[in-house]
Structure formats: structure tokens, C-alpha cells
């Protein structure tokens, strides 16, 4: 409760922030919906071909791609969230994991970016391991699975709010994103 009011009060521009408390509440309720969250321990419970190490390699690679294309950080966070949500429900083989990553990034970039790269670019960055048709098919699969519920708050959304509340003058807040 305190936090909610503080988000509203601590803003520099009270006009613009008139909605912050209700937006925060909305984000919070979205986050609490179980269907929006990945299953904890899905690697043991659901997957049998891939390992945590392979996910780590995929995420590292996605971070690089996001930097290369100068994506907003929201795109990257959404991508990884969608990968985890998909993997919480479906088993996937080793050679399709990167395809899933690329398709999730394709969707997230369409949602968040002003100029999302075209599907050909996404094939190219995988060293053409996958065909355009495969990426498009995976895109459809993921969207059907997510039921178009693309927008789920990510760590980043909350971090922005908390960092903002904690640092009234916001002069030294560059550090915070280094940790994620």
C-alpha cells in the first residue's frame, strides 16, 4: 500500500504520474497470474533433452543479438520470458531451442520495436540454421500458445519502478541495470 502511494507522490511530474499507482497495481495483478509465469524447475519437470546450461548459452546469445540490433531492453526481457513460458509447457529438442529463441525475439520485437528486423535477418543471425518457413511456423506456434497474451510485466518493469522510488533524485541510477 505504502509503495503504491509513494510511486505517485515521488514523481517529478505529478500530471504525468497520475496513473502510476493504478498502473503498478495492474502490473502487479498481471504478474500474480500463474499462467503468466514460467514454472519453477521446469528444466527437471518438463524438459528431457535440454539442460540449464543450454538455456544459459541461448540467453547469452539473445543478449548479444539484442545489443547488435540496439533493441530496447523490454524486447530482450519479453523474449526470455516467452522462452521460459513456452518451455514450462512443451518439451523441445536440442536443435530447436535456438529456433524458439529466435521466434520469441521476432514476436517481442514486433511488439516493442519501432522497426522490427525482417524474418530473413533472424534466419541470418542463426547462421541460416533455420529456414524462413520454420521461423514463421514457430512464431505462430508461440503466439497460439501464449494466446496473444504477450504483455506480461518483466523484472525490468518493476526494477524501473523500484529504482525510481528508491532514488528520489535519480542522479546515480545507471548502475542498476548492470546486475541483470
Amino acid at each position, binding site marked *: 500500500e505504502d509503495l503504491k502511494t509513494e510511486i505517485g507522490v515521488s514523481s517529478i511530474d505529478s500530471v504525468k*504520474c497520475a496513473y*502510476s499507482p493504478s498502473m503498478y497495481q*495492474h502490473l502487479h495483478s498481471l504478474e500474480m497470474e500463474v499462467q503468466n509465469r514460467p514454472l519453477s524447475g521446469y528444466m527437471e519437470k518438463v524438459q528431457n533433452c535440454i539442460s540449464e546450461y543450454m538455456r544459459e548459452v541461448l540467453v547469452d546469445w539473445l543478449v548479444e543479438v539484442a545489443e547488435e540490433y540496439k533493441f530496447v531492453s*523490454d524486447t530482450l526481457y519479453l523474449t526470455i520470458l516467452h522462452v521460459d513460458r513456452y518451455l514450462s509447457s512443451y518439451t523441445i529438442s536440442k536443435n530447436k531451442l535456438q529456433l524458439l529463441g529466435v521466434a520469441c525475439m521476432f514476436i517481442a520485437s514486433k511488439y516493442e520495436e519501432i522497426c522490427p528486423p525482417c524474418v*530473413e535477418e533472424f534466419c541470418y543471425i542463426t547462421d541460416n540454421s533455420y529456414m524462413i518457413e520454420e521461423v514463421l511456423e514457430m512464431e505462430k506456434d508461440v503466439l497460439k500458445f501464449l494466446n496473444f*497474451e504477450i504483455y506480461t510485466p518483466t523484472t525490468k518493469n518493476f526494477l*524501473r519502478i523500484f529504482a*525510481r522510488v528508491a532514488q528520489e533524485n535519480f542522479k546515480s541510477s545507471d548502475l542498476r541495470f548492470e546486475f541483470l
Partner: protein
Amino acid sequence: MFSGREVEWDASNRIWSWEKNIVYKGKCKDTGEDVAVKQIPYDSSKGKFEGIHPNLIREVTILRRLSPHQYIVQFHNTFCVNDNKRPLWNIVFEYLSCTLKQLIKQKLDPSNVKRLIYQILSGVAHCHSHSVIHRNLNSESILFEENSRRIKIAGFGLSRSCSIPFGVEEKFLKSYSPGVEAADISYQPPEFLLLSENYSLSSDMWSVGCIFAEMARGDVLFEANSCSVSQLSEIFSVLGTPTEADWAGVTSYIGWEEELEALDYNFTSKDLTLEALKAKVPALDVDGMDLLSQMLTYNPSERITAKKALDHAYFKNLDKTEL
């Protein structure tokens, strides 16, 4: 809820088309309920098939977050059919036969203007508290349900979600496409026309102001012009040319052109601006004029919010139990 198989529509029964989007009137086979079916064409902007259109992803995602709500069009489902081996996506909505524009043509009396703008503001406040910027509010993206006499906001194809909190250091701020080219130019706020990249929720409030004036006047407030510079001069001719004092940074936007500065619309006082606006909307009373001028404020950060507008003195004699 129903899937595509249970909806049938007649391609000759086209109810609306905008850009390349076409909306058909259809029927749900199970319930017999009328529905609107919006077909989203392939994204052919890059000359090749690019999968699912970004506007479809955004519209459906946003509608899932916003509906059901009494002032937001009810979204039912999406389905996909094959068209020449390519998936053609459709969005199914509730069917509403009347747009606000059609209603305005029949002339609205002042009490109805008040009731409808209150409903519109409630709907917009709902979008804004879910961090959605509509970006294309106009008298055709707002529909009217004759039975309940309620408006419903539709047309979320150009909407975006914005992040909170606002005003964080520039580099963490999301930027958006400068200007929203496809949106109806008559309702575009000056910051769109000036190609700003950092607009926010307040942009919708300008459009709401234009709609409010249109309802009270019975006609569009700012006629559509062919380019943004002439659209801006149309606005300036009514509200005066904005100065750096009104809106810091206004002359440094990339859309700001010298010919705008040369225009002789430099009203010396706020009263003169109100006079000129009043001449355009003679039917509005003093409170209504005050609310309208707060919506049509140049500086986006000084524009009234939807939430605040709902508490404005203009609505004090509105019977809120009969909305």
C-alpha cells in the same frame, strides 16, 4: 468464446475499411449473435511475407488487457484461415452498428454531449491506467451502442503500451515512432505533427478535446489537411502560435518549420485564444470551455489527464447513475 469455424461472414457485407484493414459483419453460428470480423492483411511493407502483422500482435494483446469494460469494445477471439497458402488473421469483436461520427451528424443536445464525453473520458482513463496509449482516437474509432446508449472505444490497431514511471532519464525512456502517420490527421496532437518521439498518454487527451468540440459543434474542429505543416497552421489559426514560454522546446522539434514561425497568429493573451476557440464552439458553456481548453493545451505535460477531467466542474450536474 468461439473459434473461426463457428463464425461466418459475408464478404459483400463490408461495414468499414481503413487503410488495408477491412471489417465485415458476421454471425456467430452457435448463438446467432452479430459480430464484427476485422481482417488483418499480410505485412507486405518489406515486400515479402513477414509473418504475423505487428499491428495484430499489438491490437490483440492490448484488447486482452483492456476488455471487458463497459466503454471498451468487447473482443471475442482471433482465428486464422488459409488464403493462398498464407495465414490470414481475423479479429472477432462485438458488432456495433453506429459510429460516434454518425451520431454527431444527427446533432447532439448539450446534455448528451456531456454524458457521452464523460463516457469517453472514463474509457480513456481505463486505457491509461492500464498503460495503453490509444494514438488514434477519433469520431470513427469510437462506436455507439444504441440499446445501452453507451459509447465503446475501438480501433486499437495503432495503440502501444507505455512504461512507467515517466520522466526517467531520457536513455531509459521508450521512444515511439515519430508521428503516427496512419492516424487521422484532424485529431493528431501537435507533438505528433511535430514528429516528437517522446510523447505519452497526454497525446490521447488532445484527440479527446477534438472529439469533445466536434460533438458540441456538430462538425470536425480542425479540418484535415494534406500535410502536417498545414495541419499545424490550421491549429495555430485557432489557438495561436505556441511560444517557447508555452511549451519549452517546441521550436526545436524536427517537424517545426520556418513557415510556421512566419504565421501571424501570435495572440497576446490567453483570453484571446479562448475567444477564438469559443467562436468555433459557441454551444459550450463556461465550464465546458474551460475543460476543452485544458484538453487543447499545447504543452503535453500540462494537458489535463482523463482522470482529472472526470472531476471537472463541467460534470457536477451530470447524473452519474444514468451513464
